[in-house]
């Protein structure tokens, strides 16, 4: 019995230690990417038009999908979208591709329309969505699908402030 108890104790400590390590790695990853993006922004701000060589070095690589939610299972998609909404700072500037249901919301006070891609969780009782803004001068309803249609949208993740509340949205979005 003592051996079994010792084994359990060791198992628990190993698990706790690995949890701490994972968190540390995750944090380091975030810090590194944040630092890189901050450095890049600072460098871009300091650019002088004549310094063409430097500007070439600072050019971003071709846009590719950073977060492709279309390849994940529904449970994973819901969890990832939850994380995107709860910790948007980790996703700002990343290209996100997602599949879900098209929804339209209207601000009754000013008549402004908001377009979103909704996804449901595995129990189908909760749904979350991310607002998107199509690139160009897209007009509703001509350039948009019907409400409730299944859509795949891709855009650059960003946030904006409206009446003191921070909202997430996919900017320069395209529909497939």
């Amino acid at each position, binding site marked *: 019995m003592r051996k079994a108890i010792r084994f359990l*104790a060791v*198992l628990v400590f190993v698990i706790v230690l690995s949890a701490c390590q994972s968190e540390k790695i995750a944090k380091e990853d975030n810090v590194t990417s944040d630092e890189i993006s901050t450095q890049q922004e600072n460098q871009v701000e300091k650019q002088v038009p004549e310094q063409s060589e430097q500007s070439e070095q600072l050019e971003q690589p071709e846009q590719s999908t950073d977060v492709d939610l279309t390849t994940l299972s529904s449970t994973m998609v819901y969890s990832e979208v939850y994380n995107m909404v709860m910790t948007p700072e980790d996703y700002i500037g990343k290209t996100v591709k997602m599949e879900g249901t098209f929804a339209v919301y209207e601000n009754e006070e000013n008549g402004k329309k908001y377009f979103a891609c909704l996804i449901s969780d595995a129990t189908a009782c909760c749904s979350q969505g991310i607002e998107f803004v199509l690139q160009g001068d897209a007009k509703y309803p001509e350039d948009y699908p019907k409400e409730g249609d299944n859509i795949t949208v891709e855009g650059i993740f960003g946030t904006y402030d409206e009446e003191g509340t921070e909202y997430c949205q996919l900017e320069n979005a395209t529909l497939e």
Partner: protein
Amino acid sequence: MEKLIEYLSYPFVRYALVVGVLIALCSSLLGVTLVLKRFSFIGDGLSHVAFGAMSIAAVLGVTNNTLIVLPVTIVCAILLLKTGQNTKIKGDAAIAMISVGALAFGYLLMNLFSASSNLSGDVCSTLFGSTSILTLKTEDVWLSAVLAVMVVLFFIFFYHKIFDVTFDETFAKTVGTKVDMYNVIIAVIVAVVIVLSMNLVGSLLISALIIFPALSAMRLFHSFRSVTVCSAVLSVICAVVGILISITAGTPVGATIVAVDAVVFVVCYTVGCITGGKIV
């Protein structure tokens, strides 16, 4: 398999596995004691109490609802486990009364005062776990880890006392064991495990996490220590398998874990019937 490896690269999946293993370990250790003390259903009752307390926290706008949920659940656990046998309302009736009462008041409060725009979603998520385990914050992981380690350490250091209190309280009192104190400590730990487990499987499925591993182990083994160790191993395996199936197949996490627990119970029951339950 590639998909699974890709999913494991997500921090929240790793957090879920770590917390899932710890919760499964704690709940299975206590499960054996609770089943033997005929308190199998206390997990259900206390989880409903936790739901009620969570509703109060939501209505009051408390950010860290554990500050309210944990104390309330601990108080109810002590009342049920310590005085349940000596009051006019006996153990099972007291559990049932508190269970449905807390559930009803919790839902009523959320309906009347909740500021959330997705009430049904909030309730559903709390009751069935939904994807809670996959949406843990770093501080939730730390809290779960610390509490889980405390529970396991208590079980290790007080194994013999728990054994005494579980099987024969009268004998334990006779030999000088402070039975009342240990019952209170067990009640507190049960409450802690219940509050932790709500993240994993939700309020309605917590009982399964406590009962199934213990019952499965009892089909195969007969000594307290063998049943406890087997229960812990089965519970951890079921939690890991359940979470992995859930994220790859896109099924609800809590329900999948409980389904795996149920399948393992059927397997153990069959093996027990074939071997006569005399592996050890």
